[in-house]
């Protein structure tokens, strides 16, 4: 990932900052500039998610992408935040600890790095409550 690309999304990765449409009360993560439901009538505002949610689906990664080979086996899950949006995230837990419906909370972790000389990417992962 390029340095500017990560930097532009840094705030929402560090703190789960998305958007909320005051017109239809829908929440979005990642943030949207316009509400796809209300369109021109939409009233978008920045919104910091509480971070609590539940695992709606997950998989155990045994054959990982480059940079994650030495973390296997690890849990990759779809987390539904209490406000509604779903996002994909690594679940920091023993692989036997996660089930569909497991309640999770956010933790601040390293997401990756560009080799030994490049930037270190930080952000939010989830762990069982």
């Amino acid at each position, binding site marked *: 990932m390029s340095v500017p690309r990560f930097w532009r999304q840094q705030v929402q990765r560090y703190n789960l900052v998305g958007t909320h449409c005051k017109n239809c009360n829908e929440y979005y993560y990642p943030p949207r500039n316009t509400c796809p439901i209300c369109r021109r009538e939409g009233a978008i505002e920045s919104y910091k998610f509480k971070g609590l949610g539940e695992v709606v689906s997950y998989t155990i990664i045994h054959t990982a992408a480059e940079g994650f080979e*030495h973390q296997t086996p690890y849990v990759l899950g779809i987390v539904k935040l209490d406000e509604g949006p779903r996002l994909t995230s690594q679940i920091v837990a*023993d692989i036997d600890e996660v089930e569909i419906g497991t309640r999770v909370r956010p933790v*601040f*972790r390293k*997401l990756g790095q560009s080799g030994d000389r490049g930037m270190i990417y*930080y952000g939010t992962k989830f762990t069982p409550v």
Partner: protein
Amino acid sequence: MTVGIVSYGAYIPKYRIKVEDIARVWGDDADILSAGLMVNEKSVPDLDEDTATIAVEAARAAICRAGINPSRIEAVYTGSESHPYAVKPTSTIVAEAIEATPSMTAADFEFACKAGTAAIQACMGLVQSGMVDLGIAIGADVSQGAPGDALEYTAAAGGVAYIIGSNESEMVAVIEDTFSFTTDTPDFWRREGMPYPEHGGRFTGEPGYFKHVMGAARGLMEKMGTSPEDYDNAVFHQPNGKFPSKVAKMLGFSKEQIKPGLVVPWLGNTYSGSCMMGIAATLDQAKPGDRIFATAFGSGAGGDAFSFRVTDRIDEVRDQAPKVEELLANPVYMDYAMYAKHKGKIRLG
């Protein structure tokens, strides 16, 4: 102007390795080592944890404990000897993650194991002068010990954050005074680009730890006109259990006084977080009106001594964030091979 701790927060990774598992690999006697060091096990960071992630978790716990509006934090200082970048501040990552940016100042501190308390002193000056509303001082480390070196038995991971302010009604503890004792003493160092520190073996004891802890502690008590009997509890930098126990006795403090803050047997040495973790564990069980004496030590070398007076506010905020005892509970143990992987000690490719 009064200055004190407005809130505090700690973080300890869940993984541990026992001294006996390290001793087995290097052919050492675990019983002799554990008894000599008074350390049974130490914390180990997860694969995706480093000083920055630990500092953020500790800072967030401190903000949560007292319900602080992070925009009031106008100085963020992180003390560590294992900053993830050689050039690029850990403190800007922390400041962004706790939403204190952008109207604030930030910098990283380094003074071996006492960089965090040096940061507390800097925050004290800033809030007392009125330059900032609140400052946060963090001590965090994923400390390094070379394979087979004596340091490997104790070098641990953890972090503690203290929010410093000058509004007495907000304080959980008033900082009555502080005193530092510093000389140029080469007892421990790590050269630029080197993965592990070097140390002077037994030279780290008398001319390093004991001289500077005694100098700072005696200096503060002389300055304030206090004696060990005036304090309910005391905390000394804990690179192992033996040194703080011995220095407490030399100064005239009892075993009971240091007991609440002596967390090293089940945690190891969290370096910049070491003395600060002991202070946090002591605050976790302190009563309003208690007085706490603390002295941090950093190789190189220096000691920072503090005198705290706990306020009524402690009872309101104590349970709003995890206590040190809770963070130490239910650890996940790993063997030396997994520990070596977590600490990046296995050469790949």
